[in-house]
């Protein structure tokens, strides 16, 4: 480790052809109560000036921890070994005071969670001023002026006024822009972006990527782009490193790695991009579920002395017809009302409007009628960690519906049905005495599907069932859903923000925005020739056919 502090001159002299950032034999371990976890296993990576290096991998591949370790940001229980050089100078193991001369000033990092990455208690202006004061030694007035410039640079409208705003007053995309502005405050030459767009809606995602790209050209930064999304890597990166189990399995130019992969794992990742299409059900297929002018309004706040409540129109006069064997994909960004629509259709949320199941209205059902409805219509949720009761065994979870609807069943036949349901979703029935926390995300989602299917419903509402899963796991669930639909003649309402999954699974698509239906039609027609401008924007953003004009706007 270098003891002598090279002056700025040395750094610039070394800048020629040496990599900006070079990791050699980087190794990260975590001590946990359940033993040691070897998260990163001796990897080598290098970033050249002006280059974008995408580090791709699924969750648990160690891609984030690699960069956290390089920045000296590991959690307390982490240990790191190897070497991290910035312009030839060793920075691993530097005391934090010395490291703080480099972090933020030379190498900056931005994170996935725009909601929590900014301090909620300070204004944007005050947070932007901090790195300026620290690294640029700017006074209050100068920092303020520079902050306005930075906000303008990252495309925040009305930057003067926005300086006084608090993070919670900004949208997710704007917060991520502020985060980028803070990172750029000291004009670093390396930017590490850890899944910077994952928590954002696709249209916002496209804008942020476009912003990063233009800033990179302007400042000739090297960018390390950590992502799970191969599509993003393909559009954004010059070079790609694929990580798995803490190792780099393949590295090379983006075009080569992502079109002619050498390693099986990369091939598998590429193959797990959703593919295939769904044929529409026969014309004369019976209508299963039907809704006319469905309307859901939420009342927020209000009460004695607090004034009238705030009214939010979550679903605004939406109609749909679901046939036997059909899959309707409902797409939209967060807040579009797509989940509310799904829940209102199965009466988990009360709405106004006419809902018919097999031609019978379900809007005014009493408790008994509602129970009968529950048998026919089931739901699978997004979060495989939150949707299984943590204190029940898998067997108990899957059999809960039977206890309600077939209380006369004895324990043995209930057990038999649980085994069958688990086998149906290709889970080992021997595991039915285990608890949810012992399963992976994909396995949990299969358990949730088994729980819904044990009652042999006719309609399944799938609320983002694949959104929390890695692509390779997602692929398994998509195939499972296809098979189950074929075998049981199910009808699906598939709710998702992920356009490629929806395209692969559904034969009819509904696009929603702010509670209203923007467009509906056969999937391929809508994807090939979207009628509404919003749909076009959505598809452009999702498939990276980015239209400058649209992406640069806002």
């Amino acid at each position, binding site marked *: 480790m270098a003891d002598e502090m090279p002056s700025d001159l040395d750094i610039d002299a070394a800048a020629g052809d040496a990599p900006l950032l070079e990791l050699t034999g980087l190794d990260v371990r975590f001590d946990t109560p359940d033993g040691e976890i070897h998260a990163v296993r001796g990897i080598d990576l290098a970033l050249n000036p002006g280059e974008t290096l995408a580090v791709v991998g699924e969750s648990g591949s160690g891609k984030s921890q690699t960069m956290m370790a390089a920045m000296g940001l590991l959690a307390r229980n982490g240990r790191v070994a190897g070497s991290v050089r910035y312009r030839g100078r060793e920075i691993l193991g530097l005391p934090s005071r010395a490291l703080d001369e480099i972090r933020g000033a030379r190498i900056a990092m931005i994170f996935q969670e725009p909601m929590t990455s900014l*301090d909620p208690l300070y204004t944007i202006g005050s947070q932007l001023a901090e790195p300026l004061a620290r690294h640029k030694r700017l006074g209050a007035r100068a920092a303020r002026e520079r902050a306005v410039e930075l906000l303008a640079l990252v495309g925040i409208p009305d930057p003067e006024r926005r300086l006084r705003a608090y993070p919670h007053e900004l949208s997710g995309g704007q917060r991520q822009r502020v985060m980028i502005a803070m990172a750029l405050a*000291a004009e670093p030459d390396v930017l590490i972006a850890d899944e910077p767009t994952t928590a954002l809606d696709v249209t916002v995602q496209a804008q942020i990527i476009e912003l990063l790209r233009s800033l990179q050209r302007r400042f000739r930064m090297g960018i390390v782009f950590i992502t799970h999304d191969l599509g993003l890597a393909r559009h954004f990166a010059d070079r790609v490193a694929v990580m798995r189990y803490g190792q780099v399995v393949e590295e090379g130019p983006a075009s080569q790695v992502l079109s002619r992969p050498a390693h099986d794992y990369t091939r598998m990742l590429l193959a797990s991009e959703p593919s295939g299409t769904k044929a529409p059900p026969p014309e004369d297929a019976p209508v299963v579920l039907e809704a006319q002018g469905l309307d859901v309004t939420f009342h927020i706040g209000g009460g004695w002395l607090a004034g009238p409540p705030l009214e939010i129109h979550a679903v605004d006069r939406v109609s749909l017809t679901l046939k036997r064997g059909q899959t309707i994909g409902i797409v939209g960004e967060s807040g579009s009302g797509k989940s509310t629509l799904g829940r209102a259709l199965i009466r988990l949320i009360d709405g106004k409007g006419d809902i018919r199941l097999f031609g019978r209205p379900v809007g005014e059902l009493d408790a008994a009628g509602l129970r009968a409805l529950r048998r026919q219509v089931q739901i699978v949720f997004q979060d495989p960690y939150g949707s299984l009761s943590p204190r029940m065994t898998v067997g108990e979870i899957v059999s809960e519906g039977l206890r309600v609807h077939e209380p006369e069943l004895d324990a043995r036949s209930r057990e038999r049905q649980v085994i069958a349901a688990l086998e149906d979703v290709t889970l080992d029935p021997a595991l039915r005495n285990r608890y949810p926390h012992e399963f992976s995300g994909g396995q949990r989602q299969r358990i949730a599907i088994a729980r819904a299917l044990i009652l042999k419903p006719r309609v399944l509402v799938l609320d983002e069932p694949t959104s929390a899963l890695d692509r390779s796991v997602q692929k398994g669930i998509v195939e499972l859903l296809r098979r189950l639909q074929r075998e049981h003649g199910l009808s699906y309402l598939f709710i998702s923000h992920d356009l490629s999954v929806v395209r692969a699974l559904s034969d009819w698509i509904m696009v929603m925005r702010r509670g209203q239906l923007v467009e509906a039609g056969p999937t391929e027609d809508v994807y090939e020739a979207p009628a509404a401008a919003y749909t076009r924007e959505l598809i452009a953003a999702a498939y990276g056919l980015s239209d400058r004009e649209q992406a640069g706007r806002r």
Partner: protein
Amino acid sequence: MIRYVLRRLLTAIPTLFLIVTLSFFLLRVAPGGPFSQERGLSPEVKANLERVYQLDAPLWRQYLNYLADLLHGNFGPSYNLPDFTVADLFRVGLPVSVQLGASALILALVLGSVLGIVAALRQNRAGDYAVVALATAGSTIPTFVIAPLYQLVFALTLAWVPVAGWGGGAFINKIGPVLTLALPQIAIVARLMRGAMIEALRANHIRTARALGLGGWSVVVRHALRGALLPIISYAGPAAAALLTGSVVVETVFAIPGVGRYFVDAALNRDYTLVMGTVVVIAVFVIVFNLIVDLLYALVDPRVRYD
């Protein structure tokens, strides 16, 4: 903001009314009366006394009378300390109790916070364990153990301080009562602050600050501490109300002429007016400090908005 304060004060009125009503009837339903325990009181004298104090009127009448008096700021006479009105007792005693309580509160907040921050920054190291052990001790050893132990060691054995007495408010007389009052609070504040700081240091925005090279004290003080103050503030409100209205144990052991002593005796002797007066005073303190807490909250956390 001003509208919010007004609205809160307005909603306090029904709360206070309910508390007064509840306490009034609870107190009256309880067996016994203010003059039933005094020995040698002939039935005539007792009846006489009750007539003087209008205790022979129907209960609802007495209740309405009391409410009317209360509205005029009249807490009535004390039955068991017949030379004083309840207001007199508070006028003399409350400043003493408030003085002690405020000193203890400030001591607890400052010292407790410092200990808690130190522990959080040294998490799972010797300093942390020391603070945790101290905090556990502070919150488990009852005041009625600490107070006599303090007297035993510092007054009787070492003779550094007087055993008891107010001494006209001399500093040396206040050390014992303030320490005894503060110790459990120091412990609780230290624990709260430790937990809050650990939580705050884990926040994502702290990671952001570190990643941008803003390490060191800026992170601890500017970003972590401000967030960690919130639980301390919500604790300090009720604690202040409790401390400022006096403590039975401390005032009895150290012979302090505050208002804390009255309550237990008054309740046991059915000194109705004195009990009611204390209940009202405590309730007002609780309501006011809860309001202050909410206002401080809005000051620290911009996400909290009252309008």
